[in-house]
């Protein structure tokens, strides 16, 4: 099933682009969703490409990560249709898709997933000030730098918190994986990870290549390094949010804009309960409550909202960090949510985005289990 190929061009990007081009040319997929450089602005946005020629602006390896494309995949696949779509996703985006599939918000039947070992991303604010305008040269430069240096080395402090403590930057479930080549700065290696992927690559007539040797060690090293980062971050988060009062301080600048929820790929509700009538209180209630308690911080229900989100997405959180990315007041949400998610998922020994077969822990139960939960 696993076949390896190499594509050489003038640069990593060219090589990658030629891959995407010939992918569309095979006709195996009708369209391709891939990060694409927008004219003039240089913003890199997921774009659904159907004309092979348009792939010449694809920029999959840039550290720009404006949003988690899983939500877009949901839009593309939620209802069954016969068209086949290929999508280029970061590993965390794939995990989110897997969770959405379990929640019937996405479907993999006509989906071809292409991914690469993740080079991490910058927060939007960082990328948009200083890196965006550099254009695609920066992408090549960035990749080379990241490849030579330690994979997880924080590119002079600009890599987002979520990426620094990523749970797994290597694609688990994917049909095709495309990676810049260590040895040669002008070529990419393409690997098929599924029969579907293999079938498609076969159509493209690429030259065979040797599987990368150092793969395993590299991954091990990276995972260890990320593990250490995680421990540190979780530690400090713990201290900052040790009790409800501290948690209050942590959220004190929250304005209930709910951007974090909008950005979250696994917050799948069509309408958030916090927007439903359950939470539009009678004017009088505010005043009563303020009277009985002396004062009432507004907007209210802030902590309620965040705690509820932890309950709702703790088990599905894929650690993409878009919540933090979206926060107008820079509350470091990703660290907090990832540490909570870590505990929740360990508790059910469940890995979000791990596999389609694994049931969401709250969607099933057994008669004889968790006996430690009860009793007094």
């Amino acid at each position: 099933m696993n076949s390896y190929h190499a594509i050489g061009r003038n640069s990593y990007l060219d090589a990658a682009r030629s891959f995407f081009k010939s992918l569309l040319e095979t006709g195996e997929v009708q369209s391709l969703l891939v990060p694409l450089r927008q004219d003039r602005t240089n913003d890199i946005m997921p774009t659904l490409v159907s004309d092979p020629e348009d792939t010449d602006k694809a920029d999959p390896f840039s550290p720009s990560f404006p949003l988690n494309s899983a939500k877009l995949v949901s839009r593309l696949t939620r209802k069954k249709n016969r068209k086949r779509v290929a999508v280029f996703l970061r590993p965390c985006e794939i995990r989110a898709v897997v969770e959405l599939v379990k929640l019937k918000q996405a479907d993999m039947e006509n989906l071809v997933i292409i991914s690469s070992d993740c080079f991490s991303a910058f927060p939007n604010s960082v990328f948009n000030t200083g890196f965006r305008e550099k254009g695609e040269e920066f992408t090549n430069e960035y990749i080379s730098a990241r490849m030579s240096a330690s994979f997880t080395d924080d590119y002079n402090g600009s890599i987002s918190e979520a990426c620094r403590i990523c749970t797994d930057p290597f694609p688990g479930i994917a049909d095709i994986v495309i990676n810049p080549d260590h040895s040669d700065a002008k070529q990419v290696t393409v690997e098929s990870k599924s029969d579907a992927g293999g079938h498609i690559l076969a159509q493209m007539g690429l030259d065979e290549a040797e599987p990368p040797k150092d793969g395993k060690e590299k991954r091990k090293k990276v995972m260890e390094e990320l593990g250490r980062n995680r421990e540190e971050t979780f530690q400090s988060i713990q201290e900052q949010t040790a009790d409800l009062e501290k948690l209050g301080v942590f959220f004190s600048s929250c304005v209930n804009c709910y951007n974090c929820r909008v950005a979250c790929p696994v917050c799948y509700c069509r309408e958030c309960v916090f927007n439903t009538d359950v939470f539009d209180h009678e004017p009088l209630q505010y005043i009563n409550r303020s009277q009985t308690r002396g004062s009432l911080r507004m907007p209210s229900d802030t902590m309620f909202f965040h705690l509820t989100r932890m309950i709702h997405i703790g088990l599905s959180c894929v650690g993409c960090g878009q919540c933090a990315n979206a926060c107008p007041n820079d509350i470091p949400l990703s660290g907090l949510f990832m540490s909570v998610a870590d505990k929740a998922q360990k508790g059910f020994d469940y890995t979000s985005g791990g596999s389609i077969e694994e049931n969401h822990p709250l969607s099933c139960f057994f008669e004889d289990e968790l006996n430690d939960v009860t009793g007094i």
Partner: protein
Amino acid sequence: MAARIGFYICHCGINIAGMVRVDEVARYVSELENVVVSKDYKFMCSDPGQEIIEKDIKEHGLNRVVVASCSPRLHEKTFQSVCSRSGLNPYSLQMASVREQVSWVTDNVDTATAKAKTLSHAAVNRVNFHEELEQRTVTINPDILIVGGGISGMQAAIDIGKSGLKAYLVEKDTTIGGHMLQFDKTFPTLDCAACIGTPKMVETAQNNNIELFTYSEVQEVSGYIGNYTVKIRKKARYVSDKCTGCGECEKVCPVLLPSEWDVGLKERKAVYRSFPQAVPITYCIDKRAQAPCRLSCPARTNVQGYVQMVKAGEYQQALNIIMERLPLPGTLGRVCPHMCEDECRRAAIDSPVSIRELKRFAADRGDLSKVPFEMGDAGDRRVAVIGSGPAGLTTAYYLRRKGYDVTIFEALEKAGGMLRTGIPDYRLPPDVLDREIDNIIEKGIELKTGQVLGEDFSIKELKDQGFDAVFLGIGTHVPSKLNIENEDTDGVEDAVLFLKRMNLYTSTDIPAENVVVVGGGNVAMDAARVAVRAGASGVTIVYRRTESEMPADHEEILDARAEGIEFIDLASPVRVLQGDGGKLKLVCIKNTLGEPDKSGRRRPVPIENSEFEIECGMIIPAIGQKVDTEKIIRDTDIALTGWGTFEIDDTTMQTSEPGVFAAGDAVTGPATVVEAVAAGHKAVAGIHGYLTQGDQPDENDLEPSGKVQNREFVPIPENEPPGKRETPVKTDPETSKRSFDEVSKGLDEQAAVQEAGRCINCGGCCECMQCVQACQPGAVDHGQTDEVIEVKVGSIITATGYDVLDPTPMKPYGYGKYPNVFTNFEFERLSNATGPTGGEIRIRDENNSLTKEPQSVAILHCIGSRDSNFHEYCSRVCCMYALKYAHLIHEKVGHDTRVYNFYIDMRCFGKGYEEFFKKCQEEGTVFVRGKAAEVTRAEDSEDGQLVVVAEDTLLAETIRIPVDMVILCTAMEARKDARETGRILGISQGNDGFYLESHPKLGPLDTATDGVFIAGACQGPKDIPDSVAQASGAASKSLQLATKGEVEIESAISYIDPDICAGCMTCIGLCPYGAIEFDMRRSVSVVNEALCKGCGSCSGFCPSGAAQVRHFKEKQIFAELSGVMDAINNVGI
């Protein structure tokens, strides 16, 4: 419009007001938002109380009502109807439980008052958000299900039947009647249970509105009040309702089992009827799990069947049964290694039944020509069977029976394969073999001898000649080599070839000197013993392991020894030396045993320079055989395994060559005859499948009938005395070794019948089919299977009754230890005219049969009742039946009989009970107040066999009373399966195990599940009058529903807001009632209101709150919560 709330707090006399300052609470609430009136009153639930609310609703235009009083579980309905009466929706009400949750559980007025305020505040807050729900009613299916056919069940059924409505009565036993019909007389009126019980049974059976399901169980109940769907499993009875109850089947049935109806005091047949007046009269065949002997037989021979036939003297039928699976009965009766005997459960008592000998006996007595052989029709399809060994013969015989046109090709001049060439005559006389082979051939099979596959014909040719299928049963006739130096010297002859020439008499010469046989299998034993008979002066068997590892049958080894054959074990041959004068020397090396190998036997390890020589005239290696495939391979490319045997599909027995099948040694390598026969059956199935449906073989060819799932073996009888295992007569070794005459003479008739009698009938019915022949109406059908019937009913009456406690664990009372300690049920049967003694009260004599009249009897009360170690409750009926027994004993055995009652308290509470007590006292029954402590064997000084030791609490001294008979009045307890049944029917159990009624006083017939009622002893110990009364009560409850035709059901059920639902479908998986469907078009989940019961499994998960339970919406719960907390902030906790 804004809420206008009326608040009312109830004093409940002083129940609430005594601990809560109700006026203060009322004042507190009056301050709250939207509260229009706030009052307190002595008894809100009283008429004036209710009127206050009604009046206020009108005067103040209230649209919400809060009542703070007792638990809503008591009066919610009351106050809801107050609302309805005044034109409000019943769901405009909220209650605060300030009695159960405040005044009764708090001992401080201030805290109580504060708590009452918080609860009231919460209720007021909540009621603000109450919504109007429309009442939902469902129509009631008028049909009614009754579970249990005892006196309660029958009574309920009759009442319903008489009302003209339909009743389904499900009884798990083969007859209705229940425990009551097992009794003799009934207290206190002493009319006989049968006299008043059987008419009830008949009435039940004859009422056209009652549909009876006996020998059936309720398997699944789904739905809700008024609309239950019930799955009833009708267990296979194997006798259809054509049965006239004539009992001919019972006469011929050979299988005896203890009768449950007579609690083991009597035996019944495997085809039985509980008692003569049983309803329905239809007999029932007691089939259990298939007997282990039958299961362990590779050919699945109905062992129990033919053993029973031998017992019954039906030898021909025994043979017929054997021939169903074994075409060579006499042969297998002699040479089968009888795996069946290893599994025989009789071994648990003494030793296994000599099954093989019984098979031989049947074969020798029966007449092959009389064995029925009904041929099927297979058109003119032709099958070639190559090889006439056991596999070939089996395949040929049963294919022929299916109607195929079969031709057997045999390489030798005579048919029989290894049976002929491999097994010496003294074990298997040729005439036996000939007789059985002839019988097979006579069925119209063509036998071509002297036809060698690969020389005289090829598989391809056969196909060209129009054979539709070919079967290869060519066995293993090529000897395996020893692989030692000059093993090819003459004087070295392999056992296979040696036995072959001896058995076929081609040449029988053999050097009159020492002969060495190498090997430890049956072939080695045969070769050695043949050599002895052929006149070898001495025979030695050399084996590389020790005797305990020898693969040969133990008997064979013993016989060989007996015939003077020497054994040298732990030795392996290393080379053959040419001695002087044509003599041979076999050089061997000694072994020790090392680690176990794959076969689990320890592998021999040679000991350095321990070589030694054996002088001999002949060496016979007997270490195994191989298939001779070379010739065949020439014209076909049939795939072979690493062992050189044929590679086949395990289910179809087909080789790699389509239409070519194989079985027997040629597939398995050297194995037993019965395994070859078994494989033959598989091949028949495979070939038949291939030639008919062209696919999978037919189950029945592999596993003939008698398959009964999920039933247990007949338990091993407890007091069965150990007996001796009959073994065949054998000619003494000295004579036998001189001739080729058969050594074993088998069992004589008396021994055989005796031996067959030792079978304990593990499988219940033995499927000898005698009953089928005996039954004129043709009602018996052994092929019957359980069927599941679905009925729809509106309500269910549970009358599953009780079990009787088993006193065996109560060691001091000696039940099971002393033969004359009886349980109350055993006494009922003893005293019953249809019982084991025909109604005469007798005790066990020396040889354990019920003949002796008791001179003195002790009746022990409260065995397991009022006993913290067993049941704390009183079983309520024991005192009375104890009195009844006392009376019956005096009446039947004689008034001079001494009868003692050992009681704690006499509880004669019922109508006419006390009078009956008095009467018995006058009859001279002795009443000892004190629970018996122990029953022991009497000492010589005391007359009677037993002594009851007790403390007479009135005399305050320990007394010993010698008696002949002791009766234990054991407790009534909940059915063993009460929990399981309860789950199916949705009834919970109380701590005592009996079913829990909805209210101990006011709801004795209702349960937690609407439309499911309980009656009789399943609810608690009860006597007949009470049970009957309850039954009629339950019946009228069901009739109420049925006649009203509709009932109001829960309005507080789930609703999923389609504008919010994201369609994740998680709720669908969580709903226990499958009440949520997915709307593909809108891709949202939708609640099916008919099925939803409002448990909220969906709302508990739904993150967006799209799924909500009406009346328990988030907003309402939150309001209640905030109310509580605000109030606590105001008034403290």
